């Protein structure tokens, strides 16, 4: 069951790679949120109730609903054009995402380690690198935020993979931080949207030596 979900998750990454539109991205992010909930639920079924609730909150309430909505709001508010104009052609980006996935697969195979769950690890790594790739390859600032979110998802999966159980308090702290950072990022996207017409990172290259 987990595996199927994770395969979906990876597929969603690929889809993100080839899709052009920002709102597709947000949709995909929401979708990933649901998947993650599923995975987390299965993985953590045995753990105590408060943790479960917490995970529920994090995935459904936060990853699936809050953030996508917030992103859509930002997009609408700043009238960001729907195209995510990348530096590279989409075809290439698909190829790259695929290679990332394969690469992370090989990498996690290279790890002969009974403790970590391979497939989760694969998903996590691929999400991680895809996110980084997004940040590096996309022009729009909002897409950077999305890339960041993908990375966060990857990290989430990674934490599942390594089965790291943090004390609840710590978990909450981490969650709050991430939420706050995403929120702040959004806020600043808005502000940038106020001062700059089209949201292009090339607009933000004045501070340099």
């Amino acid at each position, binding site marked *: 069951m987990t595996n199927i979900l994770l395969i979906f998750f990876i597929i969603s990454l690929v889809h993100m790679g080839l899709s052009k539109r920002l709102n597709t991205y947000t949709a995909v992010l929401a979708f990933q949120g649901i998947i993650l909930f599923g995975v987390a639920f299965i993985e953590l079924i045995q753990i105590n109730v408060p943790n479960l609730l917490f995970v529920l909150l994090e995935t459904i309430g936060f990853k699936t609903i809050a953030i996508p909505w917030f992103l859509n709001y930002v997009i609408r508010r700043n009238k960001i054009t729907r195209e995510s104009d990348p530096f590279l052609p989409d075809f290439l980006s698909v190829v790259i995402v695929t290679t990332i996935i394969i690469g992370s697969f090989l990498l996690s195979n290279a*790890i002969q*380690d009974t*403790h*970590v769950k391979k497939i989760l690890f694969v998903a996590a790594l691929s999400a*991680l690198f895809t996110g980084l790739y997004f*940040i590096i390859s996309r022009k729009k*600032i909002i897409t*950077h935020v999305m890339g*960041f979110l993908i*990375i*966060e998802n990857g*990290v989430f999966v*990674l*934490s599942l993979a*390594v*089965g*790291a*159980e*943090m004390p609840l308090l*710590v978990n909450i*702290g*981490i969650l709050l*931080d991430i939420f*706050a*950072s995403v929120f*702040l*990022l959004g806020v*600043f996207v808005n*502000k*940038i949207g106020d*001062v*700059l017409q089209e949201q292009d990172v090339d607009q*933000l290259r*004045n*501070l340099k*030596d």
Partner: protein
Amino acid sequence: MGIYLIGTLFIGCALFLNRKKGLNYLLVTTFVLLQWGLTIHAWLHRDQADWVYFTPDALAVIFLTTLSVISIPAIWHSYHYFASDKEIPRERSIYFAAMIILLAALSAAYLSNHIAITWIFVELTTLSASSLIYHRRNVRTLEGTWKYIFVCSISITLVFIGILLLTVAVQEAGFSDLTYASLTARAGLFNTFWLKLAFLFIFTGFTAKVGLVPMYTAGIDAKDKAPSPAGALFSSVLLTVGFLGIFRVYAIISHTEIFPWAGRILFISGFLSVFVATVYMLRVKNFKRMFAYSSVEHMGLVVLGLAAGGVGYYAAILHIVLHSFAKSAMFFQVGQVYRIYKSKSIYDAGDYFRLNPAGAIVLLFGFFIITAMPPSGMFISEFLIFSALFAGGHIWLLAAVLLLLTLIIWSFGKNIFKILFIKPVGLNEATIQKIPPVESISQYLFLALVIYLGFFPPGLFIHLIDQAIALLPK
């Protein structure tokens, strides 16, 4: 501790909500009192866990004290900063709220004994810092803020990944406790593969805070764009928090066989930092950025000292403390310079010696102190770092570093003396505001402190540092 955190939170909200000037400053002063209370408390209850996750150990106490000392002039100069030009109540209140949250987060991060808690508060520093940077609401500050917050978020995520990888190692060894104490104690049992990965990620993540290669980049913009009192904090205490993170993990690693490997990473990063600093010291014409790059250089030296080992450990910590004082003093002064010339470009500045003698002397001596010329206390620490390098047999590295440092001092000196002595073109003397010498007192005190700590360190100070580096193998 609890009182402290809650109190801070409360004060922060209060500041955020009300705009009255007097009330603001009242709240800020109460915070300062709180801060000092915490510091004294930490002194009194050394190495006693407080609220489970906070243990004031030697290093934490040193840094916490540094922070508390610097915080006072920081706030004082912020006051002058607002007094000097038009102040919007809303901005001011946000500014102070952010500042005290930053200070609180830093203190908590110093004190925390649990790697994840450290992570949380470091992340918090990013968030609060970002609103400080954005204080002057214009495009450039916006850009600086965006870069800072984004790069830092990524880097902090890297740190988090590192922590996760660390937990893998920990759990393989059959534990789940992530407090530094237990990690250090059991370091030998962990799988080195995961440890390597963990260290690499954590180190790389924290470089964004310390201002080391590879992720020093956003910090420069932050220090440049933030108001100079905030810049002073960024280039002094915010660096130390990153250093603390690295130091603690390095201490853990030091009990495993990958210690030399980690050391090599530090060498690489440290040397590259000095190198990059040189590259840009020769280039930049914005004196605030120039100081930021000089921080990069000094952090590089610190890391080199840490990597070289032996007396280098002592030197590294001494150096970072001294650097905190010296550099914050310089940033306070830079604020005055900026107020006079209304520009950060070296071309617009000049003849400062005549316009503001008191400040000019600070700039001059600060330059001597920062470049570690006797009687600067940093001379001692740098000297020790060099001898550590020499003793470690890294003679060519030492030679290269010395060469780069000479270049740095050369261009640094050229620019500083330009500001001090050469008449600028088209400076309208009428518009210049007089700056009372009183505002330079704090800098004098700090510079004096640097000399004092360098040459006549009190026994307690030495003892603390020794205790801090006791974690590392001799």
